[in-house]
């Protein structure tokens, strides 16, 4: 089919729109100037300032810890939900699993704030952030695992049964190895979502606890500083690494916009 010069021009313009702003952020993280306005000279001092910023490091440690725990729990529950939706086609479960994925984040954030403060009378912090992150991640893991199961040939399971395998053995020796790439991709997805989440965390974090996105938010709310560019560049490098890992373990999750 034809790709006319006009189509090329319009398509490349959109790619430019997608990439130029991020390139500007990365470029100015190496700029020897307080202002993100014009290029002065090369420096890595913003990275030095960043690595000496205790608040930022503490927030990063919090984010990492929450992301590891939340994505582990979400992967276990999401895998169960994905298997259940594929095998037994329950009616209520898809509603519970998919609605938090589809609704505006602010609604989940404020309803959890109300729930934690008014009903449980809980001090906001680690636990409330963790519960919120697990809630919105389960759906993404379940979707990926279910898609993986849907693409598989049911006769493999029949063969295992005909050869005398118990259901548990069939699951452990046949199903699990086959859906493992989906589970790994789901884990990486949940991890990225957790470490990136701003909106929901903003409502359920309380005053004592900060995460990396909350720390970035409070910095850019006050003033523009190249330290934000430096932390942004490092975060982008981390995300790229995770995507590279995901494409190794489960290349199909990166294809055709799934």
């Amino acid at each position, binding site marked *: *089919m*034809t790709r006319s010069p006009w189509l090329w021009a319009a*398509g490349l*313009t*959109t790619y430019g*729109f*997608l990439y130029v*702003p*991020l390139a*500007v952020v990365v470029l100015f993280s190496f700029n020897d100037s307080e202002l*993100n*306005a014009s290029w002065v000279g090369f420096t890595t001092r913003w990275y030095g300032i960043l690595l000496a910023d205790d608040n930022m490091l503490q927030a990063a440690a919090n984010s990492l810890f929450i992301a590891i725990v939340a994505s582990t729990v979400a992967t276990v*529950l999401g895998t*169960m*939900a994905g*298997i*259940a939706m594929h*095998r*037994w086609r329950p009616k209520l*479960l898809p509603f*519970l699993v998919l*609605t*938090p994925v589809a*609704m*505006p984040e*602010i*609604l989940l954030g*404020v*309803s*959890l704030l*109300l*729930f934690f*403060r*008014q009903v449980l009378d809980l001090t906001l912090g680690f636990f409330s952030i963790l519960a*919120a992150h*697990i*809630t919105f991640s*389960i759906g993404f893991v379940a979707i990926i695992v279910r898609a993986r199961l849907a693409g598989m040939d049911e006769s493999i399971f029949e063969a295992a*049964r005909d050869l005398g*395998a118990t*259901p548990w053995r069939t699951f452990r020796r046949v199903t699990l190895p086959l859906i493992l790439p989906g589970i790994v991709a789901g884990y990486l997805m949940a991890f*990225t979502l957790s470490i990136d989440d701003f*909106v929901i965390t903003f*409502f359920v974090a309380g005053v004592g606890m900060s995460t990396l*996105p909350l720390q970035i*938010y409070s910095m*850019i*709310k006050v003033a*523009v500083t190249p330290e934000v*560019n430096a932390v*942004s560049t490092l*975060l*982008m490098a981390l*995300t790229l690494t995770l*995507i590279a890992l995901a*494409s190794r373990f489960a290349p199909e999750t*990166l*294809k*055709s*916009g799934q």
Partner: protein
Amino acid sequence: MPASFSRLRPSAARLTRWLVTLPPALFLVVFFLLPALIMAAASFREPGEFGGLAPLSEKGFTLEAYRFVGEDVIYAGILAKSFLVAGATTLLCLLLAYPLALLIARSPKRQRDLLVLLVILPFASNFLIRVYAWIIILGPLNLLYSTTAVIVGMVYVHLPFMILPLYTNLEKHDPALLEAAQDLGAGTWTRFWRVTWPLSLPGVFSGAVLVFIPVLGMFAVPELLGGTGDILIGNLIKEQFLDNRDWPLGATLSLGLTAAVLAVAGVSARLTRGRGAAA
């Protein structure tokens, strides 16, 4: 009953089913469904003296928050502005996304995955970083803190949601249709408007919903890029819960947002079904 479970006694099969289904279901009932229902109930309560809700025994249930929202035209105005911003964002996303989606769909098969990956990559960087990028760019241009800045930021943050469903749709089009149109003497524009565009409408609708709905509830983009007048419904909700501490009003506005979201999703589902094809 799936094959691998048919060897189990019926009671054991049922037990397996519950053991797998219940943990995620229970977790989501507690942390998603219950909070949502509590929020609906909170909209009928009175605000507490020091934030939160007033004790039920003292104040009971009331329609006060609804009356308040209904009487003040400011709320209707802000809802209208939210819809306008969401509409403008959706249109601009469509304008930027369509040519790129078409370009990728018409590329040779082996190039497509790479071109799609190039769409997803910037989307994978943190949401705040993508907003921050526009603070740096629009600041020196004197465009920061305006409705224009808000819309540019919204478009940037949500663009992939439009590109991906459009591409998924366009990729499935049969090239023979365009060839047939050409053989019948249709020019480039006619072929696009009479063949490609109508067939791509399911993709357009699903992309539009994926952009429109999150924009409707967004508070961070107006807060970081907008001026003092750029308050959308998301900002209003955030204000009630975190600054004014009028939770019943916040809950009422949240229910309003939920209703708006459901209406948008419903209209889109109807339009898509009317076309008889999924994106």
